[in-house]
């Protein structure tokens, strides 16, 4: 509203100020002129009255006729504004006077007519000298005289005092009148200005409101305003233009909304498509990895069994190759498994403090041989730092990184080191390699799924290209920033930043991840529940090769039959998905209740379904994923048996 006040104020000011100035100037100029004129005419009148009195007094002064002079003085007094008259003779003696002596004053004889003004009493005084009037007569006697012409003889003077009262009153009247007129003029002008300005202000106000509302997006304002449209209003053209503009804006907005709506819909469709595609992919991966799991699992077990059997060197070499192939296959499948689990958000993060040294040690064990075979140096610097993280996931990350490093390095070596970041309580876990490096343009892309920098032929011995993607996702899950630095031809460095914790010596020590001894498993009775023949036979054979005694069952009922005679297995290994629709957890649970003891058990499954893992965890059962690495199985069994005798449980999956 302040804007309106401003505009209106301006309009009024524009109208009034010139009016004010002009009227003030005019009135004052005219008044002053009139006052001046009045004063002048008053003075003239006074002077003429004085002259008249002087003329009239001439003879009286000549003849020193005081009565005549007195009469003249009285006559003078009767003139307008005269307050006092005095007639003075040549010697300065006052011969006659009339009027209030209080108003009187006398001045020295002066041949010049003078006047003055007594401010206090507001009286004008005039003196007029009285000269003997000269009468020009054409007289020879006069002309003949050789005496110099006589100067005019002053017979006396008359003094008149006038009152300014009437003049003052008239002046006041004039001032009042002038003031009144100018005031009226101003008021009239103001009224007119206000009236006219309102006529202009209203449309402006309306338009301002309209634009405000349009600015806020309220387009109905346009239709409302239309009702007020009047013809022959000032700013008519402006108003109709604004309405038209508002209309167009409104239409345009609707158009835009429509377009946005369409675009959004299209995007939505695309998103759905993308999501569907993603889900399909995940499904496919899950399905594929699941379907591949059983045979691969069996294969691995069989090969291990084969390795246990006596064989000659040639067969041994073949078995080695087989094992390598199987390992490769399992590795690939593991990668797919990881991906699908990450996609299914089935990975559970279990953060706790642990010493890095454990992981590093394991790393050395796992990869020393690989490095040696390739002729590379693998240096892993030990450290005393403890970190807060999930050891399993972290190990997987490390394993992947170092494995990659070894893969992509031809000469030199790989260094794993831990450096602190001063002042932050963080450490940098770094994997250096002197390999081929990654070009800057690929440095972001390497983290993408199925991306391999130099594998145009998609040589599967070089992996699926999932490694770094998995590493990145796992690092993200853990909340540890992962950085890549690389120079083509010189090497690559991966950095993982971990939060340190104080060494907690009371924390339960991590169990040894792997040993080669099989002594503990000797003569352990294991109950294997698996409906797939191949897998069952493979597994049983393997277990027997490790020295375990095995009871086989296809399902729950068979298992129950087998333990009905009081046989107490030491450990139960059950497949999760059994063909008579009991799931492994239920089976184990049933068996445990039947046998009346919480026998150590574990599940084996090809399902990467998150629900499976949750159920397993909820039941307190370890879940192994197919294809299971024999070594892993063995460690797990040992652990389970140790747990039975009071050690902690670790999920190594």
């Amino acid at each position, binding site marked *: 509203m302040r804007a309106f006040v401003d505009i209106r104020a301006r309009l009024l000011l524009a109208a009034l100020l010139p009016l004010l100035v002009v009227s003030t100037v005019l009135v004052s100029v005219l008044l002053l002129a009139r006052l001046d004129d009045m004063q002048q005419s008053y003075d003239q009148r006074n002077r003429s009255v004085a002259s008249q009195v002087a003329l009239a007094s*001439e*003879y009286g002064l*000549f*003849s*020193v006729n005081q009565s005549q002079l007195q009469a003249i003085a009285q006559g003078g007094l009767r003139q307008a504004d005269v307050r006092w008259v005095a007639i003075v003779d*040549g010697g300065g003696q006052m011969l006659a006077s009339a009027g209030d002596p209080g108003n009187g004053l006398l001045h020295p004889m002066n041949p010049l007519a003078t006047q003055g003004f007594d401010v206090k009493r507001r009286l004008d005084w005039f003196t007029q000298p009285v000269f*003997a*009037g*000269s*009468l*020009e*007569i*054409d*007289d*020879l*006697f*006069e*002309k*003949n*005289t*050789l*005496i110099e012409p*006589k100067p*005019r*003889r002053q017979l006396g003077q008359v003094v008149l005092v006038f009152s300014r009262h009437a003049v003052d009153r008239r002046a006041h009247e004039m001032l009042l009148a002038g003031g009144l007129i100018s005031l009226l003029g101003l008021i009239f002008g103001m009224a007119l200005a206000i009236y006219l300005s309102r006529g202009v202000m209203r449309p402006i106000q309306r338009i301002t409101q309209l634009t405000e509302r349009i600015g806020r997006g309220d387009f109905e304002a346009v239709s409302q305003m239309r009702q007020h449209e009047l013809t022959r209003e000032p700013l008519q053209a402006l108003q109709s233009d604004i309405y038209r503009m508002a209309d167009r804006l409104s239409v345009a907005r609707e158009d835009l909304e429509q377009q946005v709506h369409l675009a959004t819909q299209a995007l939505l469709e695309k998103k759905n498509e993308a999501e569907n595609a993603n889900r399909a992919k995940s499904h496919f991966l899950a399905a594929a990895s699941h379907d591949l799991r059983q045979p691969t699992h069996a294969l691995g077990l069989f090969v291990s069994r084969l390795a246990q059997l006596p064989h000659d060197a040639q067969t041994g070499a073949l078995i080695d190759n087989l094992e390598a192939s199987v390992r490769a296959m399992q590795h690939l499948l593991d990668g797919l498994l990881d991906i699908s689990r990450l996609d299914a958000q089935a990975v559970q993060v279990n953060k706790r403090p642990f010493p890095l040294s454990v992981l590093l040690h394991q790393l050395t064990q796992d990869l020393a041989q690989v490095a040696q075979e390739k002729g590379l140096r693998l240096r892993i610097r030990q450290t005393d730092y403890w970190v807060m993280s999930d050891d399993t996931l972290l190990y997987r990350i490390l394993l992947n990184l170092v494995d990659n490093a070894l893969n992509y390095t031809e000469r030199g070596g790989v260094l794993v080191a831990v450096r602190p970041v001063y002042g932050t309580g963080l450490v940098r876990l770094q994997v250096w390699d002197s390999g081929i490096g990654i070009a800057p343009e690929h440095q972001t892309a390497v983290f993408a799924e199925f991306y391999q920098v130099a594998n145009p032929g998609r040589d599967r011995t070089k992996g699926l290209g999932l490694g770094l993607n998995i590493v990145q996702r796992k690092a993200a899950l853990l909340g540890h920033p992962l950085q890549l630095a690389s120079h083509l031809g010189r090497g690559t460095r991966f950095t993982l930043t971990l939060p340190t914790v104080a060494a907690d010596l009371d924390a339960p020590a991590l169990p040894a991840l792997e040993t080669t001894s099989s002594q503990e498993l000797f003569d352990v009775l294991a109950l294997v529940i698996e409906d797939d023949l191949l897998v069952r036979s493979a597994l049983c054979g393997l277990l027997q090769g490790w020295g375990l005694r095995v009871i086989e069952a296809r399902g729950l009922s068979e298992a129950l039959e087998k333990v009905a005679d009081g046989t107490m297995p030491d450990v139960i290994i059950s497949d999760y998905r059994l063909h008579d629709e009991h799931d492994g957890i239920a089976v184990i649970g049933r068996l445990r209740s039947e046998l009346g003891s919480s026998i150590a058990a574990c599940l084996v499954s090809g399902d990467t379904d998150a629900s499976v893992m949750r159920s397993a965890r909820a039941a307190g059962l370890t879940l192994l994923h197919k294809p299971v690495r024999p070594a892993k199985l063995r460690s797990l069994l040992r652990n389970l048996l140790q747990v039975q005798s009071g050690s902690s449980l670790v999920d190594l999956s």
Partner: protein
Amino acid sequence: MRRYWRCLCWALALSLGGTAAQAQQRVVIVSSVGSAAYATMAKSMVEVLASRGVVSSDIVQLGASQMAARLQSALSLQPLIFVAIGSEATQLLSSARLSVPVLSTLIPRRNFERILQSAGRVPGSQLNALYLDQPLRRQLALIHVALPQAKRVGVLLGPDSAFELPRLRSLAAAKGLTLRDAEIASSDALFAGLHRVLEDSDVLLAVADPLVLNTLTIQNILLTSFRGRIPMVAFSQAYVRAGAALALYSDPAQVGRQAAVYVLEVLRGNALPDHAIEPDDFEVEVNQHVARSLGLSLDAQALRLTLRRLENLP
């Protein structure tokens, strides 16, 4: 014989004529400036002279300044007579030592005497004047004739006119009139004197005196006398016009005629009279309005005739 006589006459006439021709400027008229009266007077004089045989070539008319120039340049004029008209001319001619008689005209008596005094000369046949002033007896006669009921004559005299008093007194007594006189020494005493005179007079006789009667005083004196209902007998036409009841004066033409007579006398070889010459012809003027307001009925012509008869003049 007759032929011889005729030749002689012719020779004589010629010689006479020659003489006459030789004596070209016989009369020089020097006139002052300032009034048309001077010219009128000169004109009438010349007319009279002409009618008596003085040819115009015998008469030289000069203005006073011209004359002064002539005198300075010593271009001598040798007329038989100089006629000065007015005070200025008179002063000029009187101060110039002339061997020729000078007749001064249209000059008040007092002025003439003053001029002579300042020039160190005495009036006589070499230098005489035809006064402007009317003889007192005539004035009194006028009063007597015009205002027979007036018995007391008032006069206001000033320093220039005081000398007239004895004569006035005797003349008035002779006529059986009482003279009421007052003499004033300064203009401040004017009204007092006037008042004194007027309150005891029946008629006011104006006597020329610059202190008493001048442009500044005339109005008031007239007013005073009028207010006192006392007629004023003045000595100039102008006064009558201004408000005096009666005036006795000489017309310039009359003066010119009279002067011409004296000039002719001198031209005939006689000398000027050595006594003051008073004007012999005069006019009477009456202000009828004033006379009526004063309750007088006066006839100017009748008064003049009466006065002339009294003087035994036609």
